[in-house]
């Protein structure tokens, strides 16, 4: 039937047949497209990366120890626990919900592991599994309250915050805290173990090769199908940039202790979550429910199940974060998970660029956001400043992140990209 009018001799590509649409080509075109995207409010990771550069510059000027290899390794050790919790927050924010109880759930999980392992003599893997299963059940309870009783997650998780804090205090009522044995694998994992130098280099090389291979295969398939393709140079450049920058980071960290295994676990979870969000039907459903739940329902998506999965993943990761925190501190105490853990986890996701309005976010926002927060914390500790100032500065950074989110959302709406 209606063939597109084809003036040129070559058959136009399937997605380039419409002559009225301007398409960016080449490196200059790609740069132009990037500028247009940023102008229309699609900022991506730009704000958080700029923020991180500013923070690093300021602290490095104030105290040259800040960017030292040893301090950065320490920073990565500290980032991993709350980072894992923040990764779960990304999931609930994607469906435009919130979980305010992640701090309490993490503290409760660490108390559980401490009690079951040290006091009751359970094997460590079993104790950890129990904590994770309880975490999943807590998420299922929130989802039940939300799906069938229509209870806003803000309220249900707020009551969860109090209830699980109470449970944590109750479990630890006799001793106040349980010390985990030094030298045990779990504590070593949280405090000492780093990836061997050669393995870290190899893993980075493998990751870069993987990025290149998947992109290359996709472009080959697009070419075969008559769709527009990226130039080979662009794919190679991207993979090479990842390779060089990450190998440099690994090299720099390897000058002292190296890359912590606990951070390796965190990054692996981030990569897996990114894959799940971007490449699976589940991730697509999550994004759809966050954008327009009614449209998702009419498309045949089981919306309740999507909410259920988001809440369950969030509190399971919160419990895992609690276990890692216990390993990091070698103790399960009544203070675990209290204070700023909750808000840092939520702030990290938002600072990293996951929208509070739902339907827009990335697993990498948890990684970048928690590094920003830990960088502020580490920098201020190095300057020997009190925690009062740390709270104020983290609060200001969070406010800026939310303002950026709101403004870019408004800008997206006015240029039709909301």
């Amino acid at each position: 039937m209606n063939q597109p009018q084809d003036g040129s001799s070559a058959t136009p590509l399937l997605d380039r047949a419409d002559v009225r649409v301007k398409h960016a080509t080449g490196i200059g075109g790609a740069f132009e497209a990037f500028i247009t995207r940023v102008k229309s409010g699609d900022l991506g990771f730009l704000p958080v990366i700029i923020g991180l550069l500013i923070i690093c510059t300021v602290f490095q000027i104030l105290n040259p120890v800040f960017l030292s290899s040893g301090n950065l390794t320490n920073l990565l050790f500290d980032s991993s626990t709350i980072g894992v919790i923040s990764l779960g927050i990304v999931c609930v924010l994607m469906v435009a919900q919130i979980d305010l109880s992640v701090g309490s759930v993490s503290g409760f999980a660490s108390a559980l592991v401490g009690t079951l392992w040290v006091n009751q003599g359970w094997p460590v893997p079993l104790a950890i599994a129990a904590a994770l299963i309880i975490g999943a059940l807590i998420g299922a309870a929130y989802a039940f309250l939300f799906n069938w009783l229509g209870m806003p997650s803000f309220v249900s998780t707020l009551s969860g915050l109090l209830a699980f804090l109470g449970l944590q205090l109750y479990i630890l009522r006799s001793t106040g805290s349980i010390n985990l044995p030094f030298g045990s694998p779990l504590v070593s994992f949280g405090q000492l173990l780093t990836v061997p130098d050669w393995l870290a280099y190899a893993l980075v090389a493998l990751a870069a090769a993987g990025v290149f291979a998947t992109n290359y295969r996709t472009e080959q398939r697009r070419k075969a199908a008559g769709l527009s393709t990226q130039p080979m140079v662009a794919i190679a450049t991207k993979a090479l940039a990842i390779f060089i920058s990450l190998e440099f980071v690994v090299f720099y960290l390897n000058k002292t202790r190296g890359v912590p295994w606990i951070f390796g676990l965190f990054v692996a979870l981030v990569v897996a979550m990114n894959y799940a969000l971007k490449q699976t039907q589940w991730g697509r459903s999550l994004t759809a429910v966050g954008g327009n739940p009614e449209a998702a329902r009419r498309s045949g998506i089981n919306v309740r199940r999507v909410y259920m999965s988001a809440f369950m993943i969030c509190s399971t990761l919160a419990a895992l974060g609690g276990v890692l925190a216990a390993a990091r501190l070698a103790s399960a105490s009544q203070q675990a998970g209290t204070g700023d853990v909750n808000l840092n986890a939520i702030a990290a996701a938002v600072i990293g660029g996951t929208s509070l309005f739902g339907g827009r976010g990335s697993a990498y926002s948890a990684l970048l956001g928690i590094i920003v927060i830990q960088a502020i914390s580490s920098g201020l500790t190095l300057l020997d400043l009190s925690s009062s100032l740390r709270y104020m500065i983290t609060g200001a950074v969070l406010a800026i992140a939310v303002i950026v989110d709101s403004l870019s959302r408004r800008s997206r709406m006015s240029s039709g990209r909301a």
Partner: protein
Amino acid sequence: MSDFPENAVPRGEPVLSLRGISKHFGAVSALTDIEFDVHAGEVVALVGDNGAGKSTLVKILAGVHQPSAGEILFAGKPVKLVDPSTAIDLGIATVFQDLALCENLDVVANIFLGREKRPWRLDEVSMEIRAWTLLNELSARIPSVREPIASLSGGQRQTVAIARSLLLDPKLIMLDEPTAALGVAQTAEVLDLIERVRARGLGVLMISHNMEDVRAVADRIVVLRLGRNNGILAPDASNEELVSAITGASENSVTRRAGRRAQLEHSNEARA
């Protein structure tokens, strides 16, 4: 569209036949003894005033409601549309008035929402190819299928919604007020689109308030009034015929209004 002159469209077998469909909500009869056919390659317009039962009928055909009495024949066989997925599986696609698109997802993701290829490793390339094929068949004006829906105009969104309904190769497509929210040019685009869908040999059932649009594309006009068939008209029926079929009287507010205007013009002429 000059490409598809009305008389060149082959009138196929009846895709959908309604026989004595009634629907009661408690004591209220929303529909009584509705009978009409939709053939392959035919656009049937369903018109009627507010409360005439159009929406109820659409919901019955979409599988949302079940009829209280009567029989639905689909491709000659009696069927029971017990839920929306049964209707979709049979080949009845519905484009609801509010379109139900996710504005934060791109065009491909919206077209395939809930029916993605390879759930554990989305096959973006073949989904994009299929999306372009569908959109090109509709001669759609979509700049890029990788832009979020939010960046599209109302007409383009309607196009995406129609393309999505065509994804599963339906035999009948129902459009609820497809032009209600659109401007002049976009309305024309959607009407073109409806004619292209008809040219593919699908049956089209279009619900509309807009008599001009109805007359522009419909092969037959089914009038509902107070839940009953109130005549099946040809698209060249006069405005008076249509209005009186919809309102049920030749003496109604529309004719009175027309009368007043004629009088006014008459007196103006007399004054001049």
